[in-house]
């Protein structure tokens, strides 16, 4: 049992983080606690520190809205945080949609869908196009384009303020990821994921690969939601520097040979073999 926990340590930590953030928001709504008030678009910590979604701010700028100081400050705090720890830490440690797509992924792996659909028919660069479109449409229509269709918004707002037909969005993403495209939403389409991939390009916390310990079992690649970032596994010892890595730690925990570990980014080139 303890081995099972150890083998899923980051997964459990991530679920605890994701759920407690949602619980804090819900507690603000239901019991009026003021630890964390609002939602993932914008919130207030302890009635003092503002936090805001930087992509929402960009859309507001593109749409030509008058921007308030609180939002700029909140977006700066969030951007700085993710710039340091890795942008897509949001995706795997905070975003509630991750729980849905991870479930799809789990079923894909265990039921053998992955074995039938080996090649994925779409490029992961779609998200950058969607990100570009988000800003273009925001500019042309004078409206925050992604915020009005975002399944992330529907899901987290739904959980905190009441779901409505939001369950349909959850179901669509679940089925899409399960049958249509592996890691379809989070790994291919989501412009927020694309945005945070760019933000976290130079982040400090990075997974480190030691090629000499690797036994080529490829468990890490199988479990990784962004497996293209692990291109060096078994080939060379280096850090995973691609911003698309979500720092979820799945590769670290499934590795039986201690070949993958979290580390601090090295800013100088070490002598590689």
């Amino acid at each position, binding site marked *: 049992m303890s081995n099972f926990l150890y083998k899923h340590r980051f997964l459990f930590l991530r679920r605890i983080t994701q759920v407690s953030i949602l619980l804090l928001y819900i507690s603000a709504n239901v019991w009026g606690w003021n630890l964390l008030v*609002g939602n993932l678009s*914008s*919130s207030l910590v302890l009635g003092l520190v503002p936090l805001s979604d930087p992509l929402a701010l960009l859309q507001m700028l593109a749409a030509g*809205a008058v921007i308030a100081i*609180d939002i700029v400050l909140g977006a700066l705090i969030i951007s700085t945080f993710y710039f340091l720890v890795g942008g897509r830490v949001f995706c795997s440690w905070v975003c509630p949609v991750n729980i849905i797509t991870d479930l799809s992924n789990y079923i894909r792996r265990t039921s053998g869908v992955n074995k039938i659909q080996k090649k994925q028919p779409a490029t992961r660069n779609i998200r950058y196009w969607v990100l570009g479109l988000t800003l273009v449409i925001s500019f042309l229509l004078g409206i925050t384009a992604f915020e009005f269709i975002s399944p992330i918004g529907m899901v987290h707002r739904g959980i905190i*303020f009441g*779901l*409505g037909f939001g369950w*349909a969005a959850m179901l669509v993403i679940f089925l899409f990821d399960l049958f249509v495209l592996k890691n379809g939403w989070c790994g291919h389409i989501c412009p927020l994921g694309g945005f945070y991939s760019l933000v976290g390009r130079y982040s400090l916390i990075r997974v480190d690969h030691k090629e000499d310990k690797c036994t080529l079992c490829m468990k890490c690649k199988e479990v990784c939601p962004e497996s293209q970032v692990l291109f060096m596994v078994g080939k060379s010892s280096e850090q995973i520097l691609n911003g698309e890595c979500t720092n979820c730690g799945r590769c670290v925990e499934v590795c039986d040979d201690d070949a993958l570990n979290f580390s601090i980014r090295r800013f100088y080139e070490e002598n590689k073999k």
Partner: protein
Amino acid sequence: MNNINPKVEMTNKKEEDMENVVNQSRREFFLNISRTAGVAALGGLVWSAYVDEATANSLILRPPGALPEEDFLKTCIKCGMCVLACPYDTLMLARPGDNRPLGTPYFIARDIPCYMCPDIPCVPVCPTNALDEILVSTNGKLDINKAKMGVAVVDSLNCIAFWGIQCDACYRACPLLGEAIFVEYSKNERTGKHAFMKPVVNYDICTGCGLCEKACVTEKASITILPRETVLGRAGDYYIKGWDKADEARLEHATSKTTTTDLSKEKAVDSLNDMGGLFDE
């Protein structure tokens, strides 16, 4: 990064082959770019069309101090702070399926109206100023009576006061009683000895709080809050109240646009003196 270069062996091949490969890959490159651009155009069109339609709903009541709808939609970040601040659970965030711009705050007056808290807790918490304190302040102090959430419109066909039955539910419910709604008396010719006591709304003062709509006794409310943009007209520059000095100020920014028709090309007198068409020729 030093061992991912499988193209090194290419140098051994004939130059001709090289050229073909380059041409082929160039074509593929342009085809891929065009294809992606095509998909992006299609997606962008569907996306814009949806968002444009979804945000076109104008019959929605916003919290006090909300910016004009167009500005509100681009400024509101959908965080729900106003919803959390509202002590009466009046405000809601639009959910999927509510047929309102997704995630934005609104209220349904007939269900829970705005109770017009003097300290307006929903407005100062707004982080984006989509709910603007200035719009609900007089001399720097919050003043809920300045709120303009909508206007009450009376359905004179179904309002029972217009039938001659005595009812002043809306008048009594109004927080600006006697100002936003007042009662107009007129003789009931049908009976000859009773009076109509008709509720009339002063659109200048009405805040659109919806307490009247909530109080209305008819099965479906006969007084309804609608957005000001929907109900109120605009006199424009052509008409002013000649007896009101203040009203003339509107003309300061008047645009002078002269239309020319066949008749107005010439002076009015010339037009009168024109005999053309009066005689047989």
